[in-house]
């Protein structure tokens, strides 16, 4: 398997595993495995407020992170799966730099509007604004990650040549 494909596969598997972890706490709680559910949920405590009233419920239990974070992560995974359909994995194309900023605008507006009380922040606004950002993010991150990994690997292959040169110079 080529290095770009391998990098893509690692990102896709990582994003999938991350999303599976989000769903595990409600699933485990539903199966009466409260201790394991609590342990996994606590892993996400430093990165999300986990307020129950702002979370998506599965089997009557909240997911590991809030609705906005859930939307971002699940949409990121969906975008990662969509990536090879829209772009070529072997030849990464960087999108224009404004793409990510535009995708971030609804999230920022939703958060600010909620803080300032301009409009009621609902589950729907959280999910849609988060999902838009999450769906766009892989198209920015994956090509940069593939390009970067290829650069790092090719550089590490070149290192012994440099070392040899250094030795012969000495």
């Amino acid at each position, binding site marked *: 398997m080529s290095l770009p494909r391998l990098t893509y596969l690692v990102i896709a598997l990582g994003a999938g595993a991350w999303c599976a972890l989000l769903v595990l706490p409600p699933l485990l709680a539903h199966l009466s495995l409260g201790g394991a559910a609590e342990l996994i949920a606590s892993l996400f405590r*430093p990165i999300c407020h986990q307020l129950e009233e702002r979370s998506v419920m599965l089997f009557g239990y909240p997911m590991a992170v*809030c609705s906005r974070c859930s939307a971002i*992560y699940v949409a990121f995974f969906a975008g990662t799966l969509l990536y090879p359909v829209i772009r070529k994995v072997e030849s990464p194309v*960087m999108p224009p730099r404004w793409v990510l900023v535009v995708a971030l605008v609804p999230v920022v507006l939703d958060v600010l509007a909620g803080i300032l009380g301009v409009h009621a922040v609902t589950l729907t606004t959280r999910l849609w604004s988060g999902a838009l950002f999450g769906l766009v993010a892989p198209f920015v991150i994956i090509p*940069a990650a593939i390009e*970067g*990994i290829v650069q790092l690997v090719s550089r590490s292959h070149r290192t012994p040549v440099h070392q040899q040169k250094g030795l012969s110079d000495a």
Partner: protein
Amino acid sequence: MPEKPSKLLPALYGGIIIGVIGAIPFLNFVNCLCCAGVLFGGYMAVFFYRKDLPPALPLESSDGIQLGALAGLFGAIIGLFLTGLIYLMIGNVAGKAMIEMLMNVYDSLGILDQMPPEAIDQMEMSAEESPLNAISIIGSLIVDPLFGLLGGLIGYQIHKPKAGVPPAAPTPTAP
């Protein structure tokens, strides 16, 4: 060909940003939005590095990966140290405020009276606990480099050289 500058210092600056945002009570709520503070630190590491980079050398995506991950690692260590220090000095103020806010919400919804006293006691006890435990330490050491790396890649996408514009030629040195 000039050599690329060291990545250590820009990554450390990014790590300090991550650590400070993650440790200061209430400011660390920024991380509740998909680790925005960690992403920002990774981005800033690339920003600082870009400033040190000679015009002849282009910023590469591998720079973004290395800077972001390193900033995240520094940020996790600095953040854990500062979190412990702040807890020793003033206790878990953010935890207490969070529980108080939750109690107010439950009270306004009229469900506080229906809650078992043991549940309320447990919530109050958890607010007194140190935010540092094995899970938070392991979690920070995994999550911060990961999200820092993503921030570094975003930083690269924003600060990458424009397509079709070749890097400036190195200035000739006097013989």
